[in-house]
């Protein structure tokens, strides 16, 4: 271990805040075990009870029509594409019934930026769901919120307030990709800017809506841009405290315009560990078994993660990029126990519902 890396890790373990330069140096280091060990110590300090949580949830992707056409995405279709779809309400309700029957507590409704769907569509959908079902609606990432604001001509705050009174409980952290202009111009030029993403989250937090934050790494971004992404999230979290968890995903290249190769296992674990070390004010770090597989997701519990994410009774976006990892609740519980942690089912706000 070089003195530089050891020094940065020691500072992080002692609770000192790391800079973009520190984070970049850690990401560039090959000392995987040292990074994991430090992140594990920080996780232990933040979550001394040794619990690893998960949520029973379902993704509902109401439409794949999207005008953004991001180059890293394999999910979107043009409106006239034969594979374009918009789910009707009966189907959405049926999916929610199935979710509740499976013990689900969270719905992640997300979709493309469909030019034909305005704010009223979303408000009515939320009201109809809440009239029928008792379930937490963790839905609509910032690009969708901005899409609703633009199509309705209303300010963001008003859109979020209306969604909230119609039944929206919290926001997922999608659409963050890498929160750096240079990267966004290349991989998602039609998507909202990083400042807009931040503004949606800050406004949501001010309204009392909790959110998660994500990062899609392993495409064209530099290591310094990854570290900058983390620092930008940390700055907002200092102001609002509204992020419950951070979820890094690696870019899945199959069927995308961007193409290339996927981030390696070592890169995933290093990025996850550095996120735990940098995001000293974000309580939870979530593994992504859907992109990494159950084996690597479990190993990530030794690299600073404390949450296994959702059971995802349905997932379409990663699957469109050719990755089909599946896992049952039993297997999640087994993986967590096998790693020496206590498995617990949680709700969206990270309150424990059941300890296994």
């Amino acid at each position: 271990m070089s003195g530089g890396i050891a020094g940065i890790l020691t500072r992080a373990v002692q609770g000192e805040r790391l800079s973009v330069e520190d984070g970049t140096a850690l990401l560039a280091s090959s000392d995987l075990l040292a990074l994991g060990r430090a992140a594990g110590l920080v996780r232990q300090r933040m979550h001394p009870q040794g619990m690893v949580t998960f949520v029973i949830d379902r993704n509902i992707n109401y439409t794949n029509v999207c005008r953004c056409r991001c180059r890293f995405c394999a999910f979107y279709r043009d409106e006239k594409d034969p594979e374009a779809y918009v789910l009707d309400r009966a189907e959405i309700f049926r999916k929610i019934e199935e979710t509740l029957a499976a013990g689900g507590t969270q719905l992640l409704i997300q979709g493309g930026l469909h030019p034909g769907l305005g704010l009223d569509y979303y408000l009515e959908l939320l009201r109809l769901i809440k009239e029928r079902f008792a379930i937490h609606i963790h839905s609509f990432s910032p690009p969708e919120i901005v899409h609703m604001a633009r199509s309705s001509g209303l300010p963001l705050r008003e859109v979020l307030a209306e969604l909230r009174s119609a039944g929206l409980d919290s926001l997922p952290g999608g659409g963050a990709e890498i929160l750096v202009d240079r990267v966004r111009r290349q991989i998602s030029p039609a998507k909202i800017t990083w400042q807009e993403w931040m503004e949606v989250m800050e406004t949501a937090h001010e309204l009392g809506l909790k959110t998660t934050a994500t990062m899609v790494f392993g495409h064209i971004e530099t290591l310094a841009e990854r570290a900058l992404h983390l620092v930008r999230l940390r700055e907002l979290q200092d102001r609002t405290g509204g992020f419950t968890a951070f979820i890094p995903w690696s870019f899945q290249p199959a069927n995308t315009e961007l193409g290339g190769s996927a981030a390696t296992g070592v890169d995933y674990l290093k990025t996850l560990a550095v996120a735990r070390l940098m995001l000293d004010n974000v309580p939870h770090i979530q593994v992504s078994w859907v992109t990494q597989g159950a084996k690597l997701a479990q190993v990530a519990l030794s690299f600073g993660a404390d949450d296994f994410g959702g059971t995802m009774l349905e997932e379409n976006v990663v699957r469109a990029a050719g990755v089909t990892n599946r896992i049952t609740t039993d297997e999640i519980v087994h993986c967590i126990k096998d790693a020496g942690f206590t498995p617990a089912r949680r709700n969206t706000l990270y309150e424990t519902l059941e300890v296994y």
Partner: protein
Amino acid sequence: MKRPFKESDVSDIGAKVLAGERLNKEDGIRLFQSRDLLPIGYLADMIRTVKNGNKVYFIVNRHINHTNVCVNLCPLCAFGREAGHRRAFTLSLDEIETRVLASRDEHVSEIHIVGGLNPDLKLDYYIEMLRRVRRTLPGAVIQAFTAVEIDYLAGAHNLPVREVLAILREAGLDSLPGGGAEIFSPRVRRLICPRKISGERWLAVHEAAHELGMRTNATMLYGHVETVAERVDHLIQLRELQDRTGGFLTFIPLAFHAQNTVLEHEGFYPTTGYEDLKTLAVSRLMLDNFDHIKAFWIMIGPKLAQVALSFGVDDLDGTVMEEKIAHDAGAKTGQYMTKAELINMIEAAGRVPVERDTLYNVVGEGL
């Protein structure tokens, strides 16, 4: 930060490793039972560095499975078929030659051949196969036929194992792969492979091969009915034979895949990432007289295989090209990896890729 294993529940074992002391059965069992994944990895990584520096080996090879007809039909296996089954196959010598010929342009340095115990295939088939492979690809090392197949041939011809090995060697066989070892414990073999040769017999075939000057590999199939103590016994038996002969090149733990096997509905979970990494790391620590520990990406996936390079592993096997045995049991990995992908994986882990042949002669470095 302090050396991480000092704060772990295996710190005393760490001290033994540092002092260069051999680990005993109890140490092995405690390492397997510990959840302190990173400290165990750290110890294994130290030993790996001492033995192999920054080098990670891989091979450009082609696997050929010549038949899936097998009289053993082990419960652990999804590959074997009865003769006459609609999915039974046996490659003709011409078909094998065609496959070998097809890999000539891929610059393979090893042809790797294993198959079932097919009563219709006699020694002359194997001799001719080896001669043709050698003739077609004279530069490639032929690593073929597990101890189980060698023993079966010896039985079929009523010849001593040593003589069968000598005949095959004469025809071109260079090295034996490590398959068929499973777990040596008779209790386990009764459950997962009751008709397969015993652990003693497997070790005897390898000892005979070593005595003839052939280098061989060793494996362990884990993640089914075996106990942790049975895994450690297996490792210690390999270590004892290696003390006598020094003939083993590499140890390769194989994660059990239950799908499509008789054991599928016994409720086995797939092996976990912790289990895979710990097994590799504990193997590195127990097998102090083995030069190499290999993570076979076909069995545990390329992502975890790369991570395993920090857990005692110095070898990632190879390009493979075609693999039937693990895939029939539901392995979801690809059938091949390009040399460029292997090199990229190794470099992304901060290591130096070295292309080797079967016997760890360097084929290419500074790639």
